[in-house]
């Protein structure tokens, strides 16, 4: 079935996504500058579990009246594949990037999640016996004395099953058109809660396929079927006239959040110079969550 939005074809395909374990960190600081510094460091080098062991991104900025301590803050979504990995990665990241950042405090953004992972209770040992706990509103927090003053961190964080790997591909006539469409899509998705775009600026230029033609040890390699420069030497999936492809990868709390983000992002990406919107999948055999593009865009203009 053919579907077009403002002249851009929406391919009859689907994005294949995976169940991931997710935590939400609320990082506050004395000023937006330091909240941003902590958030950028914490979510840095966290694009894909393939090479970074975790995926993370800034969900949204928080006004003082939205944070537990009344300071400006930022909400971070943090995702891993295996349940046991989440505490390890959180302890590393919070310990090295938020604990170290001036004026910050770190709170749990999923207080009602029944599954809990211990973070503050492990980081407390940095206090070398001078740490103190404090119960506030039935939740335990750890106060770690640091040279600047004191770092406050929640004892544990909620863990939910989320979804990672929602995606769509922007097939465009030129690199400029692809980038402009991707930027428009990122800007459209940016205000949404419950989703993150873990890649640089929200955009991936190096989509991957499973495995490698040359190496048995590589779990992923370039998605040659979508590389315009390989059109003549590989089994290309690209229609005529496409000279650049960019991908948006969307991780979220649940399928509804990802569907909403895909719908809004795809709609923004359908603009002059964009030939087709496609999606990455593995034939439906690897990931349990399938996001069918035409179904998602069914309500679009």
């Amino acid at each position: 079935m053919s579907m077009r939005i403002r002249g851009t074809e929406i391919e009859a395909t689907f994005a294949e996504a995976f169940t991931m374990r997710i935590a939400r960190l609320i990082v506050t600081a004395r000023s937006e500058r330091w909240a941003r510094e902590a958030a950028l460091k914490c979510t840095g080098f966290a694009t894909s579990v393939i090479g970074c062991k975790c995926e993370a991104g800034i969900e949204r900025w928080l006004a003082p009246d939205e944070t537990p301590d009344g300071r400006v803050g930022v909400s971070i979504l943090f995702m891993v594949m295996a349940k046991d990995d989440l505490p390890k990665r959180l302890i590393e990241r919070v310990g090295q990037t938020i604990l170290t950042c001036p004026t910050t405090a770190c709170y749990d953004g999923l207080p009602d999640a029944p599954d809990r992972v211990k973070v503050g209770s492990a980081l407390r040992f940095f206090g070398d016996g001078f740490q103190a706990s404090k119960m506030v509103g039935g939740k335990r927090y750890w106060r770690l004395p640091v040279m600047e003053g004191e770092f406050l961190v929640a004892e544990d964080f909620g863990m939910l099953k989320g979804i990672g790997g929602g995606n769509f591909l922007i097939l465009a006539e030129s690199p400029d058109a692809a980038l402009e469409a991707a930027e428009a899509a990122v800007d459209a998705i940016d205000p949404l809660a419950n989703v993150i775009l873990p890649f640089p600026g929200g955009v991936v230029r190096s989509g991957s396929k499973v495995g490698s033609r040359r190496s048995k040890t590589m779990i992923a390699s370039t998605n040659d079927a979508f590389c315009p420069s390989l059109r003549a030497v590989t089994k290309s999936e690209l229609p005529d006239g496409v000279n650049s492809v960019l991908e948006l990868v969307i991780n979220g709390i649940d399928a509804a959040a990802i569907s909403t983000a895909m719908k809004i992002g795809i709609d923004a990406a359908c603009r002059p110079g964009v030939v087709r919107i496609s999606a990455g999948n593995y034939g439906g055999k690897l990931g349990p969550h399938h996001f069918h593009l035409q179904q998602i865009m069914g309500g679009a203009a």
Partner: protein
Amino acid sequence: MSGLTLTLTAPLAADTDLSALTADGWASSTAATLAARPVFVGRVRHVVGELFTISGEPGDTLVLHGDLARAHGIGARLALGTLVVHGDVGNGTGIAMSGGLLHVHGNAGDNLAGAFPGEKRGMTGGELLVTGNAGDESGAAVRRGTIAIGGNAGARTCRGGIAGTVYVAGDCGADAGLFLKRASIIVGGRVAIPAGFREACTYDPAVVRLLQRRLLHLGFPLPAAQRGGSWRRCSGDAGDGALGELLLWTS
């Protein structure tokens, strides 16, 4: 939120022990069963129903109306639910409470959230808010939980506090934090630094802001001026390890 409302029918003629009011099972009590709970007015045994009119449906909230300044032990051993008092309360309010919320819209007497005679620990959990003033030894031997006093506190606040937090928005009387172990006393008004405390620094601990947000959420009348500025930290009591703290608001 459902619960029973008790309204004092006449001024209390003598000191009254209301500690049985929130004994085990109060949250499931009907008006009739709660009315049958014992109270002692002076040395004379009465039942709750002789002092209060009771209305409402059983639930996890109990609301008391009236001048209960001569009623002692209100909220004793409270472990869950919400107890709201509109009026002054007497001594031993929230004594040995371990959970739930006790919110007094008025003044409180001595030994707020303290320990029963012979017991080592006072409050071990929950939240106790007093919008007005409190008497001597508020939070004595507190082990865990939060006590907030909107006005002034009397002498020896948090005496022997093991852990937990006492927030006094007003002034503190003499010998605050005497024999303090690990507890926190946060004072928005004036307090004399006890001899066993040493000044550490002036800073802006996030935990105070967190606590303030919680208190505001519960409807505690926190002075706006205290929601900012810095806090002067003094550690003590030196004779008990100096792991406790006195945080004093500085403008």
